């Protein structure tokens, strides 16, 4: 046994050496924002502070599962981006360390957890996104009501995210709960009807955007940031909002309890919650709505949002019921076809 252990120890040291060829005190991050949104922000942070950001991207469910699994021996310092309901679930697992950045006091109540367990860095409303050619071929107007999506013309042609892995999906389900006055049975009756038109539930929130862009699917429900990105890539898609209202989720950041580089981590949180980062969103064509009141929403984004009825998701209600609601969705909605 001893020889085996020593061999392993030597190998481990050698491999550990391979992994640590970096400058002192970087900050380690799981980002829930896709890389193409997160990378320019981290580069800006590195430029301003000289602190290197090591990051890995996961969808919100995966990231949270990782952080919980690593609780006794945290591998990261900051959880970056992702809808607040994910962070609310994380609070229950006791994985965050409260921290209030200098911007904390200026933020509206909706954009922060009272103890500073998480702070919002952006706002991200959901939208309906449809393929223009599909609408034309089926003589449809862009959907303007939740019930429009139940039209048989959409049968097997909608794609949206799976609630087991995606915060987008959870925000969508809570939107349906809100427009139904939190009447769960009514909301689930709607979701089961919607299921009939869904081709596939994707693992990631933006997973369905490319199929909708390509016409593999006719439409779906996505965060505005993903929908506008699809449009910017050149796919002919239409963004619309339901008249009953649709949910918006704040995107948050949090310090991990037991973080090994807390000082660098706090600097990243200071940066992300302030205009220093949020003023760079528009410049990098990342279409999140800034959370910090000192940063103006970019005019073309404001134009898209004009007239839309946006319902902020109550994170306390969402956090308290998330697990149960998702389980009910998996049991009742997924197999309802």
């Amino acid at each position, binding site marked *: 046994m001893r020889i*085996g252990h020593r061999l392993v120890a030597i190998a481990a040291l050698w491999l550990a050496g391979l*992994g640590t060829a970096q400058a002192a005190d970087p900050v380690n991050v799981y980002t829930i924002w896709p890389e193409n949104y997160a990378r320019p922000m981290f580069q800006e942070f590195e430029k301003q502070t000289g602190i290197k950001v090591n990051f890995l991207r996961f969808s919100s469910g995966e990231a949270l599962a990782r952080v919980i699994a690593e609780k006794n021996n945290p591998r990261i310092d900051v959880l970056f981006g992702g809808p607040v309901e994910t962070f609310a679930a994380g609070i229950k697992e006791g994985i965050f360390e409260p921290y209030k950045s200098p911007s904390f006091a200026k933020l509206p109540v909706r954009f922060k957890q009272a103890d500073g367990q998480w702070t919002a860095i952006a706002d991200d409303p959901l939208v309906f996104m449809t393929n223009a050619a599909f609408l034309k071929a089926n003589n449809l107007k862009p959907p303007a009501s939740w019930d429009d999506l139940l039209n048989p013309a959409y049968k097997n042609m909608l794609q949206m995210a799976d609630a087991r892995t995606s915060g987008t999906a959870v925000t969508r389900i809570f939107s349906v709960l809100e427009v139904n006055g939190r009447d769960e049975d009514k909301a689930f009756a709607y979701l089961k009807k919607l299921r009939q038109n869904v081709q596939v539930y994707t*693992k990631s929130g933006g997973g369905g955007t490319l199929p909708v862009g390509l016409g593999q699917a006719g439409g779906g429900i996505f965060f505005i940031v993903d929908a506008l990105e699809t449009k910017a890539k050149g796919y002919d898609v239409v963004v619309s909002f339901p008249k009953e209202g649709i949910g918006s989720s704040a995107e948050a950041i949090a310090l991990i309890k037991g973080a090994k580089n807390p000082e660098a981590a706090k600097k990243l949180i200071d940066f992300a919650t302030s205009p220093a980062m949020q003023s760079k969103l528009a410049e990098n064509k990342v279409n999140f709505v800034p959370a910090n009141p000192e940063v103006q929403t970019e005019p073309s984004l404001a134009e898209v949002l004009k007239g839309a009825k946006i319902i902020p998701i109550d994170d306390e209600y969402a956090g308290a019921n998330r697990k149960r609601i998702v389980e009910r969705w998996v049991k009742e909605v997924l197999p309802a076809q």
Partner: protein
Amino acid sequence: MPGWRRVAGDPALLVAIVVLWALLALFVIYPLAELLRRAFVDEGRLTLAPLLEALADESHRAAFFNSLLLATSVGGLGTALGFLFAFTAVRGGLPRHWLTVLDAAALLPLVSPPFTTSISIIFSFGPKGFISHGLLGLANVSPYGFWSTTLAETLTYFPIAYLTLRPILAAIDPNLEEMAFSLGGSRWRIFRTVTLPLAVPGFANAFLLLFAASLADFATPLILAGNSFPVLPTQAFLQITGMFDFKGGAILSLVLLVPAAAVFLLQRYWVGRRAYVTVTGKVGQRSRTRALAPWAGVLLVAGCFLVAATIVYFYALLLFASLVVAFGANNSFTLSHYQVIFTEGLPAIRDTLIIAAIGMPLGGFYGVLVGYLIARKNFPGRHAMELVAMINYALPGTIVGIAYLIAFNDPPLALTGGALIIVACYVFRYSPTGIRATVALLQQIDRSLEEASSSLGAGSSETFRRVTLPLIAPAFFAGLGVVFIRSMTAISATIFLVSISWTLITVRILENMTEMALGPAAAFSVFVIVVVYLVVAGLSAVLVRLRAPAAGAAARSFLGG
């Protein structure tokens, strides 16, 4: 205890056995035990309640039966397709270079990263697919579900059946068929009563290998199965990553263990023993067999080329997607996706290559050492060692990944986050091919060679180094090849093990796909295929140079497992 005394008298052997058992205990037994503990021990008490709960859940039961249905279909169809290729290659009378073309196309799916077939199927058979909509004019076809998953997995895994069946068919002496022919049997009757029965053990073996491969496959169903056809490996993954439910995920993956273990034992102790066809005399002097009617030959060749063309078409689509701005919307040529993978994707490429480069020699050496001990040395616990060394190979990757994640996160064995855990995962999961190749080779080499060395006074390490090692070099290189290919293409286990400092190309591909960055995903895939082909070609060249008698067989076994 004469066995122990013999071992004790040979220090090199003793050290090797102790070290190997220590490694097996650490990287095979301990993680699996941790997984079992996590699943069945609740607050210090043994309980089966969570298991019963999981089995009572209707969607989990459906996933279990779906997994079996999928594996059976893929096993059957893949074996049929593999037989078509093998029979054509052996009896079709194709010129050599055409056979090479056919081989290259057939092996493409085996050396590719996951998802490649899946992406192409979506683009070909989706609602706006090139084939379903563009060619056939169908609307609203769903590319998700049982059939597309079966198609993708069959195309991905049938080469295993091909590689298993080809040597067996080649070993059937055409003279047998010739004799039956001259006795007045019809061609169909001969095929039915002579050729097929001789190939039956091969069929069973190929079927079980495909069954196991499909059972363990996580990537294809994740993309293609959709929601109406859930299967166990993806359910286990979603249970953990989506519901933060480690216990549930562990239990689901253990449910998968039952059919996986059954198939493995069946293959090994029942079919494995029979899967040999006795060869007598020289087989080089064959004239073309008359056992195949000309029209049948044409039909077989046409069938093979149709399948090969489908595969080539799928990969052409992938290459195309990697070279255009936005697939389907803006088809103008660009190299920007390759620029992305060689700048932003460079860490993943570097990490993957480093891990593959470290794992390759370790895996090759480990395989040869274990194979040698099992085949040549008589020591207590030999069979147990053989069985334990096979465990991680027989288990679906999801189980191994979850077990490693659970076992190696907390001190003192906090290996998650490093490269070692990924390397260990690959070495202990993919070296068994090297072990089997070594055992097979040694069974063909007479023991007396080594005995002569011992009686001349050489110790067991010197005999191993100077006599045995040169003889089993082909198996060593075969082992290297398999570990390298898997290090470049596997995902099911390692998706749980990547970290901030160490990530992998395959995980990046999945990430790109879920982020709708199809271009970089395709570019990464093309890169992996090119690298793997180059390395395999290099290793094959080494094997040819060795001119060892069994080099050819070892080269074939590259991909056989």
